[in-house]
């Protein structure tokens, strides 16, 4: 074929050049993007489910979102009429601005401001700006898999610091006795979204649901409580409590981890044991937000260390308002204790009593009204958000998020593998991760 060695070398040289170039084009994905032709059912109408629907719509793929409650939103919500500004009932801070949500803020020109107000600590029955000892003990490599509470004691902090440690754990939606010092640190090493917590002048809810929820609203079926997912045949059959049955090629499950842990949804055949074990290793504790309106601003912008509620925040930060609204941000066992009370009024009374102790009766004297949002009692949520629990390991979330039989996919903040769990942008990242997986699973 080649009449001389030189000609062979010449052909080989040019051939390899062509091969390099062709292989590069293939890897760019420019040649042929596989197109999924089937339909998808998304279970859960929170941020992950809504964004997955939006992406599928953009890709021209048929989909239905089944939402168990009577409205979209999940752990995002909006309250109007309580104060002179709309309130975020659920997620209200954008954590870091270098994420897909940060880009949405820029693109849709949402007005946000950095929430960097000062802290006060309720410590040994007085409000103080600085603690006698630093509690900055958790941001270190090589921590043991002990709870925040146990590790704090091991580091020599006295029991007086436990309410402060509780407030730190509360930021993670956890009780200090369950939150792992080791896994919080390990999972946070993947964080890449930048610094600071940002508040929305309007609401976080509006950013997500006005811009994306509205686009998929026609594909959402509310009051659809899924009880069975049968993936034993080619088509996945999804059944609801009301007897409706839906059929799909792929199902994306974005429900909170508590729903998966409590087997509210039966899988046929059952999910692999390693997967259900992984579900059980991810923490998600009780969570409650109580919005209290006062006639004056007698309180600090951040109060840490209460025994009834470990963290209070001034909700008016970043808002255009004349109202004075304080949020009781109650997590873990404190939230369970309040949730177990008979009525919202009992919860409010307990919180007012604690604030009265801190502020010499000013809370009750200035109290105008309150709104209780108890996510622990919300039947299709039952908690705040996922956290790094003692006893989990570095593969726990990855196993929980693995797809099953190329037809069941798992999203939502608890399934975020890159340190952005507990956040709206973390939930959205799982939405696009899973949609891209679905596109590849042809």
């Amino acid at each position, binding site marked *: 074929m080649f009449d001389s060695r030189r000609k062979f070398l010449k052909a080989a040289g040019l051939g390899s*050049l062509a091969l*390099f170039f062709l292989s590069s084009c293939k890897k760019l994905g420019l040649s042929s993007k596989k197109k999924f032709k089937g339909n998808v059912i998304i279970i859960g109408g929170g941020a992950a489910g809504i964004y997955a629907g939006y*992406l599928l719509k953009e890709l021209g793929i048929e989909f239905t979102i089944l939402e168990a409650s009577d409205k979209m939103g999940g752990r995002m919500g909006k309250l109007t009429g309580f104060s002179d500004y709309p309130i975020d009932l659920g997620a209200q801070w954008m954590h870091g601005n270098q994420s897909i949500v*940060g880009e949405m803020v820029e693109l849709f020109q949402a007005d946000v401001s950095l929430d960097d107000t000062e802290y006060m600590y309720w410590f040994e029955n007085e409000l103080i700006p600085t603690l006698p000892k630093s509690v900055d003990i958790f941001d270190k490599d090589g921590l043991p898999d002990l709870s925040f509470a146990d590790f704090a004691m091991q580091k020599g902090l006295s029991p007086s610091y436990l309410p402060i440690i509780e407030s730190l754990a509360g930021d993670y939606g956890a009780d200090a006795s369950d939150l792992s010092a080791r896994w919080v640190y390990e999972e946070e090493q993947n964080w*890449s979204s930048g610094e600071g917590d940002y508040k929305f002048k309007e609401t976080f809810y509006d950013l997500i649901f006005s811009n994306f929820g509205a686009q998929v609203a026609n594909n959402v079926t509310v009051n659809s409580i899924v009880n069975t997912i049968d993936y034993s045949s080619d088509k996945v059959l999804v059944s609801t409590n009301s007897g409706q049955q839906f059929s799909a090629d792929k199902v994306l499950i974005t429900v909170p981890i508590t729903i998966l842990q409590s087997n509210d949804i039966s899988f046929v055949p059952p999910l692999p044991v390693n997967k259900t074990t992984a579900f059980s290793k991810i923490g998600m504790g009780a969570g409650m937000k109580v919005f209290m309106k006062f006639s004056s601003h007698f309180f600090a912008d951040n109060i840490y260390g209460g025994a009834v509620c470990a963290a209070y925040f001034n909700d008016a930060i970043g808002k255009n308002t004349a109202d004075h609204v304080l949020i009781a941000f109650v997590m873990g066992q404190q939230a369970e204790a309040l949730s177990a009370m008979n009525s919202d009024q009992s919860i409010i009374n307990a919180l007012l009593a604690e604030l009265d102790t801190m502020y010499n009766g000013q809370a009750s004297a200035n109290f105008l009204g309150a709104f209780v949002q108890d996510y622990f009692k919300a039947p299709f949520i039952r908690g705040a958000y996922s956290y790094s629990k003692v006893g989990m390991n570095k593969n726990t979330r990855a196993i929980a998020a693995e797809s099953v039989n190329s037809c069941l996919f798992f999203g939502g903040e608890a399934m975020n593998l890159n*340190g952005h769990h507990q956040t709206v942008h973390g939930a959205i990242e799982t939405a696009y991760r899973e949609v891209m997986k679905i596109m590849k699973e042809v």
Partner: protein
Amino acid sequence: MKNRCFFVLSCFFLSAYASAQNYRIGLGYSFLNNSQWNQTIQLYNDSRPFLEEKQPLLQNGFFLSLDRMLKIENKHPFSLSLAYSFFNSKADNVVYVSKINLHALTFSFNSTKYYLIHKNTPLTFSFGAGIMSNYLERNINPNATINDDYPIRSLGIGPMLNLNFSYDIALNKGVTISPFVQVSFAPYYYSPGAEKCLNLTQGLMEESWNNTLNIQAGLRFSCIK
């Protein structure tokens, strides 16, 4: 450390021990293909339909190179080459401008020139081996992205093989101009953290080890002392 590297490289390029010296300066177009980076940028674009202007792939840039031909007595001649390339990807969405910059540096030892057809024809090829490295950074509106108080950036490095085809045109006795094409391939390229720059996430792509292809086309100017 940087000064020491600079000193060592300077010695290579300015050494007076070689019996013959031939300097070449090159410039031209540079094409880059790192499959993982491209997939990450594709993921970034696919996941953000709301962005009207998509983030272009990091594939088109320019390069500048400096070669030194060396011939040590009784040994085959060879060359040392240092090349800098710059690639840029900019998505200008009016209120949101995202810009990714990639600075790449290669250092290689290259063989003598071999004639493709017969001796003394101007068409030659050579091959070589060396190191490819890069610095990746992202700016948004127009600030550097920051995480944990430091800019989000990524450094990459890997061994590289290259193949070079050139056509020598002698302008006069001392100066030669050579159009050329060079294909460089780094099969085991280590670039941890690139996903943070390219998609603002970490762990969605298996990105630490990948491969990088670089094709350069341009002109070299040779000057024989």
